[in-house]
């Protein structure tokens, strides 16, 4: 392969990764947009999602040893897998909001964020206690088809993930822009008190936001499992921080920004790994995070100013 082909290949890989980061970043951005909270527990909801996926698959009779599927069984299993996992992580998000975050929502300062760090630690260690520290194999149900475009290769996996991500994002965009709930969400993001006075049930909007964000994290977690073929209790932190960087980069609070940021970080990871070295990936990504926070806190799309007046 020529150098150009290698780069092209990394662009394709990066786009697929970027979709995963984008799905995760959406959850951060939606919650931040509504209650200005940096939600560390999102990392571990994502991680927990991969284990939920494992359980769902084993209930469906799919184990890491199973052969990949095709045709109707594949579509059926994928639909059930995504639906059940997303619903479960969504409910987990709701649970976190109701039990741990609602009591501190009106506390000013960093207390709510510290709470989310605590929740993240609890979830990570519950998973660790249940499944143990070793990495778990994630069933590879997608057939290993691949096509060559130029000198690069596109796998069926990448195509499926890309398509699912697009469907979810279009759905979310429709929900936020065209429905009453979406309008309530946007109003709450602008001014929660004013929204409440206009008869919007802000608590319900917050809960639904957590549900949607966590459900998207659930989808993202299945991407991780299907793409990498393994999972472990520790995967949430690094992936989550990269996704968070995506959200900040795109402009925290901005939904298109989160997608753009996710793709950018995905490309940075694959191209940076190719050009500079995989071991420096995190340094590059965290440097981007710090740089954006300090120099352009509104991000690329700058939907919302992250400082309170």
């Amino acid at each position: 392969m020529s150098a150009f082909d290698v780069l092209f290949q990394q662009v394709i890989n990066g786009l697929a990764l970027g979709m995963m980061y984008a799905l995760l970043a959406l959850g951060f951005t939606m919650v931040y947009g509504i209650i200005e909270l940096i939600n560390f527990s999102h990392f571990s909801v994502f991680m927990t999602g991969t284990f939920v996926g494992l359980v769902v698959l084993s209930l469906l009779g799919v184990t890491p040893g199973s052969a990949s599927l095709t045709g109707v069984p594949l579509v059926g299993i994928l639909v059930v897998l995504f639906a059940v996992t997303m619903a479960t992580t969504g409910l987990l998000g709701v649970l976190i909001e109701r039990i741990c975050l609602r009591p501190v929502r009106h506390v000013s300062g960093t207390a709510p964020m510290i709470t989310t760090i605590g929740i993240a630690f609890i979830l990570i260690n519950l998973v660790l206690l249940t499944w143990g520290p070793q990495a778990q194999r994630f069933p590879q149900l997608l057939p290993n088809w691949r096509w060559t475009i130029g000198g690069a290769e596109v796998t069926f996996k990448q195509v499926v993930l890309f398509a699912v991500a697009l469907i979810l994002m279009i759905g979310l965009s429709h929900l936020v822009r065209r429905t009453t709930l979406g309008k309530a969400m946007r109003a709450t993001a602008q001014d929660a008190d004013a929204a409440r006075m206009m008869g919007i049930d802000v608590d319900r909007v917050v809960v639904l936001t957590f549900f949607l964000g966590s459900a998207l994290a659930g989808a993202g977690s299945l991407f991780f499992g299907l793409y990498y073929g393994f999972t472990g209790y520790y995967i949430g932190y690094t992936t989550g921080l990269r996704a968070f960087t995506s959200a900040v980069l795109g402009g925290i609070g901005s939904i298109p920004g989160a997608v753009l940021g996710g793709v950018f970080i995905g490309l940075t990871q694959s191209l940076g790994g190719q050009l500079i070295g995989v071991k420096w990936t995190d340094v590059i990504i965290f440097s981007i995070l710090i740089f954006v926070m300090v120099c352009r806190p509104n991000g690329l799309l700058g939907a919302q100013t992250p400082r309170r007046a």
Partner: protein
Amino acid sequence: MTVRALADRWRGLTVARRRQILAPVLLGVGILFPLVTSNAGNVDAAANAFTYVLLALGLNIVVGFAGLLDLGYAAFFAIGAYGYGIAASGQLRPEWSNLWAPLEWAGQVSRLAMPGQPATVQFHFSFWPMLAVSAIICAIFGMLFGAPTLRLRGDYLAIVTLGFGEIVPVVARNWEGLTNGAQGLGGIRTPKLFGFDFGFSPYPYYFLGLALAAVGVWISIRLQESRVGRAWMAIREDELAAGAMGVNHVHYKLLAFAMGAAVGGLGGTFYVAKLTTATPDMFTFPVSVMVLVMVVLGGLGSIRGVVLAALFVAFLQSVILQDLTQYVHVLGRVVGSPFLQRVELITSLELIFGLILVLMMIFRREGLWPAVRRVSALTREQQAAAPARGAAVKLSWAHPPVAGGSAHPLLQLERLSKQFGGLSAASDINLTVHAGELVSIIGPNGSGKTTLFNLITGLIRPDAGNIRFDGQDIAGRPSHEIVAHGVARTFQNIRLFNNLSVLENLLVGEHVRLEASVLGAIFRPPRVRAEERRAASSALEVLEIFGNRLLPRLDHPVYGLSYANRRRTEIARAIMTRPKLLLLDEPAAGMNPVETLELMDLIKALRDLGITVILIEHKLDVVMDVSDRVVVLDHGVKIAEGAPAQVRSDERVIEAYLGRRRRTA
């Protein structure tokens, strides 16, 4: 004596006296502990616990005192650890040059010559100077990592520090030439003292750790009760008001990062000398969270709280969970559960940390052992008492004007303009205020009165125009500098340091008139002691101005004061800066007529003491009564200026307030 009598006597002692008793008792217990316990394992665990104490104290300076949430604190632990580790191991072997000769002479390095190869340098820097060097290196990194965060608020700052906290271990893992990568540094030399090698016995480390922890506590207490500590707490409570009281937030935030990092560096150096190895995964995010758990558990800003919490976490880790595991195993054998027989509770340590964070945030945010504030309730008489009007007001530092002396212009505004978007909040304002004058600024809501104060005190920059104060151009200077020149203010919507006491609020006001630096605060030389005494007596003098309104409430946190008393505290705090010019923004708002009159007497008295006053006020009757001159603003334009009677009958003023008279044909 009964226990109760002893407890009562203890409560009657002053804080200083209690410390004089507690310090030797606690140190004595600390020194006797290894002699009492027969188990070397306990001593080793306790020595490690002192590392935790140092880390918790360091983070407490950053998060507890200055209110800057640092989520990457383990980075400084790492830098301190690697600093000593590299200097006391064979990791770096630079080529020999004669520049190393002085260090060789000092016994810190030696020349290693192999036949047929260039000579290299073997590092074996001594532990004691390296303690200081590591602390300084950490302080520099603290400022480096802190500098980008200066403009960020709470959680964004936290994320940036977390980013640095992630980068440091990655660099430690990948920069193999410096750190030996993932395998870590090995063969780090143990400390020596007068020829005695600390070696691998836990006992010498225990005593060293005890000494370092004691030093950490001492530094923390000294800093907290100093000009530096008060500046940090002021920034934590209200950054903008702190600036208006002369606290340079850039300087003090960096200082907090540096001091916190330095204490963490001490911890890292000690830990690595004891362990004789350093690997990158000793300093990851969970370590930062563990230190945060200690600070949150003990209580942000509470020194004894974080020390106790650090000891508790160490005890939990090395004793409680181990012992509990044994019990659970026995229970498992009894009930025949293989899971219970295998379980290792120590693996759930982070689970416990998570639970602690969540539960503390929901149920007890002030921590388990918060810094207590004992306040005696006031009697009914004390609460109801009002001071007699017309009491003499004295300020020892004020210079009452000499009768017949000519007044010089103190403040000159020339063509001052400020636009907010399309709104002109100040346009071409010219105003001269002479020393010793009492000038009132009136005008309808939104006429630009507070904007004018904000321009003068440097909270916003003018778009055009000059501000000359006492012969110096102050336009666009930062507010903390302008205070030092002698301009103080109060805010329309009171901005006090809510969790500090009345006295502490006033002492922050004195900030610009004191000089103690960090070293002065820690070592408290006679000069600093005298300065602190002066500050305290000066605060009492200012409080006396308000008669018995504030004096009985000296130690009360200001969030518990009445509205009028908070206004008074804010004025008192402004007077503490020893202003030549005092800007009062609606000081009588929320006061009843009697209190208003009392306040106006006070303002006149301040003017008679030589303090020039500019007053924004809506109660026009009192304005007309006290002012030497009245300035009227409307839509950012000065529409009238002159003696009260003259302004009162001005057509344009009446128009601005009451609207235009209908034109009759």
